[in-house]
Every structure is written in C-alpha cells, then in structure tokens.
C-alpha cells in the first residue's frame, strides 16, 4: 500500500486524469460486454414472448442484492447477467470518486478529501435505494 501511495504521490495532474480515464473506459467496456452477453441469452430464451412495457407495474427483479446478481450471473441467468453489467456500470463512476479520494489523500488535500467523502456518502444513500 505504501508503494502505491508513493507512486501516485509522484503523478502529475495529467497522469491522474489519464488514470481516471482508464478506470472509466474499463468499467464501461466490462459493463457493455456483460449486458450484451445477458442480452443474447435473454433473446435466445424468451425472444418469442411478448414485451410488456406499455403500462407500469412495480415488478421487481428476483436479483436485487449484489450477491444475488453475481450468483445468478455465474449461473448464466440472462436477467442476472444484464443486471451484473448494470452493477458494474453504476460502480464505474463510483470507483472514479474513490480513486479521486485516494489521490486527494495522497496529496494531503484535506478539503477535497472531505468533498469526495460527502459525494460517496450521498451516492451510498442513493445506491441503497433510499429515497427521501
């Protein structure tokens, strides 16, 4: 951990921006691959059924916890695979805030460590589905 700390401490702003870009790119590609894989299985299995999105009904997925999603994805269940992709997608911007928190901490930028923590706290409220 100490070595990662000293490596990032030596990085320029541009290097931090590039690293952030890599996090975002990898996250989006991984998410798209998972969603596409789930989509193929979904279409093969239920392609001949009828879609129903005209009227809204609260029909919640069977996979609602991250653990259930990951388990279902490993079983090759299409809905779980797509939701695993969505999970990776949502965690992509979250990870870049975590990375920023780390970078600000390395530079002892206390105020921006606080801002990053506040953003992460708000994200945690939203991601756990707590509405006001």
């Amino acid at each position, binding site marked *: 951990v100490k070595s990662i700390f000293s490596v990032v401490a030596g990085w320029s702003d541009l290097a931090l921006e590039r690293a952030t870009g890599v996090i975002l790119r990898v996250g989006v590609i991984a998410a798209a691959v998972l969603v596409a894989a789930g989509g193929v299985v979904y279409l093969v299995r239920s*392609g001949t059924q009828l879609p129903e999105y005209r009227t809204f009904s609260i029909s919640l997925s069977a996979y609602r916890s991250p653990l259930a999603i990951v388990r279902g994805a490993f079983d090759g269940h299409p809905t779980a695979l797509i939701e695993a992709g969505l999970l990776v997608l949502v965690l992509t911007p979250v990870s*870049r805030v975590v990375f920023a928190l780390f970078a600000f901490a390395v530079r002892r930028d206390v105020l921006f460590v606080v801002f990053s923590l506040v953003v992460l706290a708000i994200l945690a409220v*939203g991601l756990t589905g707590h509405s006001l």
Partner: protein
Amino acid sequence: VNILSFTAVVFAGAIGAGMLGSLTGLGGGVVIVPLLTVAFGIDIRYAIGASLVSVIATSSGAAAAYLREGFTNMRIGVFLEVATTSGAIIGASLTTHLPGSAIEVIFGVVLLVSVFLTVREQEAPSIAAHGHGLGERLRLSGTYPTPEGDVGYTPRRVPAGFGIMALAGALSGLLGIGSGAVKVLALDQAMGLPFKVSTTTSNFMIGVTAAASAGIYLQRGYIQPGLVMPVMLGVLAGSLIGARILVVARVRWLRLAFGVAILALGVEMIVGGLRL
C-alpha cells in the same frame, strides 16, 4: 410484436438517439425518452429508467476520451458533484411520487428549454482571469490547452454555479437524463469557464450524478433489464458514431435541423401528458 423484433427496433432507435444526442450536444437521454414514449408507447417510468442507465454509459465513455485532452477540471467536478448528487436524490425521490403524465409534461418542458440552451448562438464566453474569492480559496483554477500554449482561468460566482448544479442534479434524478445543457449553463454562463472546459467537465459529472439516482430507480422497478439492454447498448454505440461524425463535419446546420425535430417531440410529450 415479439421480444426479438421489439428489441431489434428499440436497438435501432437507440442508435439513432445516441447519434442525435451527441451531434446536437443534447445527450442521449433527452432524445431516447421521447422516442420510447411517443413512438413506442412505453410507460415513461420504464423509459427514464432505461435512459438513466444509458446516460451513465455514454458520459463515462465520453469522459474517458475527454480526459486525455486536458480540458476537464476534476477539482471543479468533484466539488460540484456535492450539489448534483444531492439534487439527484431529491429529484429521484420526487419522481416516485408523481403520476406518469406529470413526468411527461415536465420532461417536455425541460426538453424545450434544453434545445433552446444548446442550439442558441453561443456568445464568446467572458473568461474570468481573476475569479471569485471562493474559487481561489478552493483552488478551482485550471489551465486549458490552446494552439498558443496553456491559458489559465479561475471560476467566478461559485455559489451561483453550485446552486444551478443542484437544480441540474434534481432534473437528472427527476427525468433520468444527464441534464448537460443546465450543467453547461452553470459552468459556462454563471462561473465564466471556457466553453470546452465547461462541456467536458459537465460530461465528467453526469455519470456520478446519474449513479446517485440509479439505486432509487432500481428499487422502484423503473429499470427493466429486457428494455435497458437494447437502449443502453444502442445509445452507447450511437454516441460513439456521432462523436466520429463530429470530428469530420461542422454540424451547425445539422444541430439546427435536429433541434427543430426534437422540439416537435417535446411538444408531443406535453400534449400527450396533458391528454389534450
């Protein structure tokens, strides 16, 4: 219409929406939602759920590309994300209490305003050389590359920018869009940042803002995997194609033409929502 052909048609429509969103600078969300509701008759709550997901994908993908160019101001981004994510949770909470018709009307109005903000003649931005005290205290200053070397700037009117950002976040959570037009308004008009810094930093913040609403949408059943799949993949592909076209073509007339088409969709949504 079975799921296979429905998915194919939605996927094709989403590619078109992604291209339009990136060519006009409006973003994919404000184009895909009216397409899904007006053309496909999909309930607006499913439409904004699918849109929110595609917004996270396109903005993160575009931010990755922009970060290499050196315009994005990450400090301003993180600071203002405090406002946008708070606003997003308020907006997403509000939307769960509204009937679908009300969301449609609000969406139509925001769509009209967004088109106006995006397509209007851009004045030369008055770049603040010496900024607001708060901008200096928070060390939000930055530089951006020009052919003549790096140019410095410091944001002014930081509190005003923060307030408009909270509103942009609320609209994002309320309607499942990136609300890039309002974010650029805060950065460019209120805080006096150079235009390219505004657009790239706005895009940088969109993914985090949308992620704040995603859990609430999921918990309320707005995010349906079978619909999200073709929408997210289509809008993502379309926005990448649109970005390529933007590199080779000056598209001012194209923006105007599509702006008018999207205006018509906005009016259609208001009329539909009011059941006129």
